[in-house]
């Protein structure tokens, strides 16, 4: 489910009601984590930044105005800015390369199905090969589940630009997977 049916009420209540915040957290955690992980690659870094995102969400809940838009784009604009701030503090090229190097050992859950893990790792490696802007737009689309117009508002691009960037990024991703030897994309 993309949106919680009562999320506006929950967002209003969450500032003083821990249970409401936990409900929002449970719903948004996988999407925000996946969004952040797609952008930064490394699992430990993704955890730290996801944590920061939710702390920012909580501390700014009183600024959320339902009349100006849905909760999800508001959440992902905070997630987007948190990761962008991180990249501003760091050298993006270094981080991206480090992320690629660390991906091979990013997970250590032996019990997880090997095939699933391999697919995830391959996808993460391929995503890490995209440029930062492209990766951000792909992540906002697939894990933010946002329209091109909402993504445009968050990134400062035009809606049609977002569509073209997304299409070209996915084409590049397919080629990267093909060169990595993933047969279904050859």
């Amino acid at each position, binding site marked *: 489910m993309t949106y919680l049916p009562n999320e506006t009420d929950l967002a209003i209540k969450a500032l003083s009601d821990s249970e409401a915040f936990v409900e929002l957290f449970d719903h948004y*955690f*996988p999407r925000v984590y996946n969004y952040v992980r797609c952008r930064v690659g490394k699992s430990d870094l993704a955890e730290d930044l996801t944590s920061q995102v939710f702390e920012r969400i909580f501390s700014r809940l009183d600024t959320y105005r339902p009349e100006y838009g849905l909760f999800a784009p508001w959440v992902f604009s905070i997630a987007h800015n948190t990761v962008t701030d991180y990249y501003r503090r760091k050298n993006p090229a270094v981080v991206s390369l480090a992320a690629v190097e660390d991906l091979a050992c990013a997970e250590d859950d032996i019990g997880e199905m090997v095939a699933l893990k391999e697919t995830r790792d391959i996808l993460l490696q391929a995503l890490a090969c995209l440029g930062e802007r492209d990766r951000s737009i792909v992540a906002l689309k*697939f894990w933010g589940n946002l329209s091109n117009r909402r993504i445009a508002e968050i990134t400062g691009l035009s809606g049609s630009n977002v569509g073209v960037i997304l299409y*070209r990024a996915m084409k590049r991703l397919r080629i990267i997977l093909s060169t990595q030897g993933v047969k279904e994309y050859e």
Partner: protein
Amino acid sequence: MSDQVWAERFSKDLDNILAGKKVDGEFPSDEYRQLIDLSIKLFKSDFSGKRGTMQKLKKRILSRIDKQKGKNTGEICEEDLDKVAGGFKVIITEDK
């Protein structure tokens, strides 16, 4: 056709996928079909994997939020309560 035209078609198909709807089976090319397959795969991907990650982070975040609340209200949060020397009055005397 230009990238702009394909991008518009792709965006429409993508929005259908994200809304849980089926995409029309008539694909203009093998490459396009692969892009749709890849999109479905990405949409279904969950990198958070282990439930433990979520629980660990939830605990950490709620604890920090608890601290933030404590700062605002002047109350001591659960975590910091452990550090309080409850019940003892500490008197520091100088050696003379």
